[in-house]
């Protein structure tokens, strides 16, 4: 009987703890990991920070793309292929272009990314084939297209264009790649979040039936999500060109599953309707930092994948545990 007073107290605590961890846990974990890195590797300096930012930039875009789609209740297994297409396309088109022309071509690639994403959304909506199947299939197609555009790694872009992301214009402790990461994700996400579109995405992902009955066109909402995801993927492909300097038709494939991993670790609920952008971007940084730390520790960097997998299981289990405790009350 005496426990009656304590029970709601405990559930309220759990609720707020769960909320805080989901919203801000990943940036905190990442900060902790950076500090830990500085401890185990006293020489950790601005150069390491730069390579971290460069390495994480395309993954952050991929994570953002995946997060948008997953929030709306879908999943996009063509993220890697769309990044590959944008990567080789930009590297091939920009190889002999001037800086100004490159900027224009970058916009073109973003538009193409939007079209690829929209194709995923429209196919899912019209054919009613499950999104996993549709995006897996289109992923194969775009992967082939990437090989047609550029058979082997090559191409390039003007140095000024590469320096947008690869350079250091402000401080050696604040590489451009960080700024590009934050600005691009914000440019894609803030308009969504502040408009009706964001509402549609969360509603469609959270409870499609209730959303439909509230007057939401679910097909439109999902197609929008895939379209924005396509734009983010194209940005990721361009970022890959900027950070590597070339186009590589097979380099993109890594990003499909890593984007899902970053989204999930970043607190996006796989069943849809919950999550944001801060978590997935921080998770992308974390997933890039882990293999670096392993090198510092003289551990085989291939353990990175093992750790990444373990992290996903732990994060998902923890989320499930919190939900379970809330339900039990």
């Amino acid at each position, binding site marked *: 009987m005496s426990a009656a007073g304590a029970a709601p107290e405990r559930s309220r605590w759990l*609720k707020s703890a769960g909320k805080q961890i989901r919203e801000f846990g990943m940036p905190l974990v990442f900060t902790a990991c950076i500090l830990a890195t500085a401890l185990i590797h006293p020489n950790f300096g601005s150069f390491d920070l730069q390579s971290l930012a460069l390495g994480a930039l395309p993954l952050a875009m991929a994570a953002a793309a995946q997060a948008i789609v997953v929030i709306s209740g879908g999943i996009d297994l063509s993220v890697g292929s769309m990044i590959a297409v944008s990567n080789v396309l930009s590297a091939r088109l920009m190889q002999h272009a001037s800086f100004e022309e490159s900027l224009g071509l970058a916009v073109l690639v973003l538009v193409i990314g939007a079209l690829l994403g929209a194709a995923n959304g429209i196919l899912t909506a019209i054919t009613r084939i499950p999104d996993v199947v549709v995006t897996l299939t289109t992923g194969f197609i775009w992967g082939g297209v990437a090989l047609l555009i550029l058979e082997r790694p090559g191409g390039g872009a003007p140095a000024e264009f590469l320096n947008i992301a690869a350079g250091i214009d402000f401080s050696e402790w604040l590489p451009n790649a960080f700024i590009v990461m934050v600005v691009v994700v914000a440019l894609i996400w803030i308009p969504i979040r502040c408009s*009706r579109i964001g*509402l*549609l995405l*969360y*509603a469609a*992902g*959270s*409870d499609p*039936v*209730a*959303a*439909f*009955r*509230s*007057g*939401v*066109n679910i097909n439109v909402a999902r197609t929008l999500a895939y379209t924005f995801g396509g734009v983010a993927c194209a940005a990721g492909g361009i970022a890959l060109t900027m950070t590597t300097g070339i186009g590589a038709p097979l380099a993109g494939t890594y990003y499909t599953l890593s984007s899902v991993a970053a989204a999930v670790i970043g607190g996006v609920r796989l069943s849809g*309707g*919950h999550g944001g952008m801060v978590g997935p971007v921080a998770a992308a940084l974390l997933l890039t930092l882990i293999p670096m730390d392993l090198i510092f520790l003289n551990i085989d960097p291939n353990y990175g994948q093992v750790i990444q997998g373990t992290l996903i299981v732990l994060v998902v289990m923890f989320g499930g545990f919190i939900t379970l405790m809330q339900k039990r009350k």
Partner: protein
Amino acid sequence: MTTNEKLLLNIGGVAKRFGSVVALRGADLEVRAGEVHALMGANGAGKSTLVKIITGVYPADGGQIVLDGKPVVFRSPAEARKAGIVSVYQDPAIVPDLTVAQNMRLARVPIEAVRASMKKLGIDNVDLSKRAGDIDFAILRLIDLSRAIASNPSILMLDEITAALPADLSDRVFAVIREWRESGRSVIFISHRMAEVGALCDRATVLRDGVTVGVTQTKGAEATIVNMMLGEEVAKAAATHHERQAPAASGASGDAALEVRNLACGHALRGVSFRVEPGEVLGVVALEGQGQEELFDCVAGVRRATGGEVLARGKPLRARHPADAIQAGLVLVPANRLQALLQQRSIRENVALATLGGMKGWLPIRMEEERQRVDKAVRRLQIDTRASAELRRLSGGNQQKVVIARWLASGFRTLLCFDPTRGIDIGTKQQIYALLREIAGQGASVLLFTSELPEIRLACDRAIVLFGGRISAQMSADEADEASLLHAAHGLDAAARMEAH
């Protein structure tokens, strides 16, 4: 122009089928401006389907909808809303991960208007920035109602709006509905609670088997409405009355096959107690959503009860999993055959699954023994085995028999049958009744929920009626004519008693 200017909504001959199941054959509904119109009908009569067609959730196969003199077709709830028809569904159309305010924006409803209607309903203390999923279910339904009112429709449809509400909130809802009527707009009111319908509604349209069978004034016409819902089946069923054996020796023999004490499950089931003796078939009757699903799920170990206990042969059973209940001899034949069967596999695998489910040994399956056992059960139930390789090619009746055959092959003490004859042809139904009697005759017991009231007299020894998560009546099969069952299922006895005080 016709002179139908008083008619706000005129629906004629609406039909709808889902695959081979006909939900509506020819539903008519006329709603006048400024009236509260009740839509009545037994389970499966087609009320919900009609509501969903009117609001554009499903397209109709035939018939027409005339709104304010103009024929209309809505392809989505959004279109219906624009035309002035808004529905409050049984499960609130509120997205759980958005805040209340965001939900209002989602439906493009002005927040000030929602606040005003929430105030009228007495729920203006709800924090609009709260996540909708964290709000109490009853309050959520009222928020859904507030939103519907705030969008200012000409026709408001309320599907079982009072089902989850405490009495004081129901009264507020009724006050709002009456005010709504005063302003010359209409309400289509769906409720199983006859007393509410009589007190609140002007006229009622009654559906039976997907057809409109009558329209009547509601004042003092409760009995007429119940009779219309029943139809002529009463006479038919009486003619096919079956010979029933006397139930096995009563109580004295000791432990009941199944005893349920004060079982509760959330809001749905609020303390139900009964016994089923060995050799007895106990019928359960209830309208939709009166706690029967929860009762069967809790007894079968599909979900955990929040209170009370279940005793199998006198031994308390704490089932954490259906396997525990099966171990104790309680086996479930669920309403949805898809839940029970492996559609892509053969009859034999499906029947044998229950015996193999326990994984008693890791030795290879003894095929010959399995075959004999399965064949015996299949023969006993006269299952049509022409399409035995893949279960989904079997008719619904034969699939249902496979579910029962599975338990016959594995052995059980109490069979929990949830609406086993839904959507099954009459011949197979008779076979299933006969089988249930046979099972009882051999000393096992059966708990049978049915939505077809004549079955109580055909197959059961006793019946209990659930209403609002409690037992509202108990009667022997001889007393259980459809009128008494239906009255009890509508909670009418209770209401009458309350009025007498």
